C-alpha cells in the first residue's frame, strides 16, 4: 500500500490554494476582494495562486462590470471540487495512518 502523501496533488496541496478551493466549494462563486480578505492575501499573491488553479482547470475566472467597475468572480469547476475532495481524503488518511 502506498503512503497517502503519494496521492497529494501539488497544485492543491498548498495552504493558500486549498483555502481558495475551500471558499469556492461553500459558495456558488466569490469575488477577488472576498477571497483576498477572507484568506488574508495581497492582490499579487492571490492573482498568482488563481492563475495556477485556473491553468489546472480547477477554477474559472469571470470578469464582469458592476456599476462601471470591473469585478472578478471566481467559480469552482467540477475538477476543482474533485481535487479538493481528493486532497482532503488524503490528508485525513495521512492523519489516520499515524493514529
Amino acid at each position: 500500500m502506498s503512503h497517502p502523501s503519494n496521492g497529494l496533488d501539488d497544485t492543491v496541496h498548498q495552504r493558500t490554494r486549498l483555502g481558495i478551493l475551500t471558499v469556492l466549494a461553500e459558495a456558488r462563486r466569490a469575488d477577488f476582494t472576498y477571497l483576498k480578505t477572507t484568506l488574508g492575501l495581497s492582490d499579487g499573491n492571490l492573482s498568482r495562486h488563481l492563475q495556477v488553479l485556473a491553468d489546472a482547470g480547477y477554477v474559472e475566472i469571470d470578469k464582469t462590470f458592476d456599476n462601471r467597475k470591473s469585478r472578478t468572480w471566481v467559480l469552482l469547476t467540477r475538477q476543482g471540487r474533485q481535487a479538493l475532495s481528493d486532497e482532503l481524503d488524503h490528508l485525513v488518511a495521512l492523519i489516520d495512518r499515524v493514529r
Partner: protein
Amino acid sequence: MNHHEATTLLHDVEEVRRRVRLDLEGLSFPLLLFGVLLLGGAVTVVVVSGLALAVYWAVAGPAGGAATAVYFYRRARSEGVEPDGLLPMAIGLGIIGGSFLVYALALRVDATFAAATPFMVVAAGSTMFALVERELRFAGVAVGLGLTATALGLSALTPMAVSATLSVAYGVIFILYGLTFRRSTRDRR
C-alpha cells in the same frame, strides 16, 4: 508531509469553511420576514375571513419569496460571495405551490384539516431549509411545528381557530429564531 502539517492544514480548512458559512448564513432574513407575514396572516383571518387569508397568502407568499431573492442577490453583490441559491429557491417555490395544492385537495375531505395543511407544508419546507443550512436544532423545531399543525388539523377546532393559532405560533417562533440566528452570526464573526 507529516502528521502535524496535515492536521494544521485540515484545521485551516475548517476555519475557512466556518467563516464562509457565517458569511452565507441564510435563515435569519427569511425567518424574520415570513414570521412578520405569518402574524399579518393571523390578523387577516381573525379580523376578515378564511378566504381573505388565502388571498393574503396568494400575494404575500410570492412577494415574500421575491423579497428574499432580492435580499440575497444584493447581499451577494455587496459582500462578494454568492450562495448556491438553486436548492433554496426550489424549496421556496415548493412551499408556496405545495401549500395551495395540498389545501385545495384536503378541503374536499375536511375543512379543519385543510386549514392546517399549508402549515404542514411550511414545516416540511422549513425542515429542508434548516438541513441545507446545517441547523439541526431548527430542523427539530420545524418538525415539532409540523406535528403541532397535524394535531390541530385533527382536533375539533374551527378552521379559523386552527389558522389563527398556527399563524401566531409559527410567526412568533420564526421571528425568535430569526433574531437568534442574526445575533449568533454577528457574535461568531
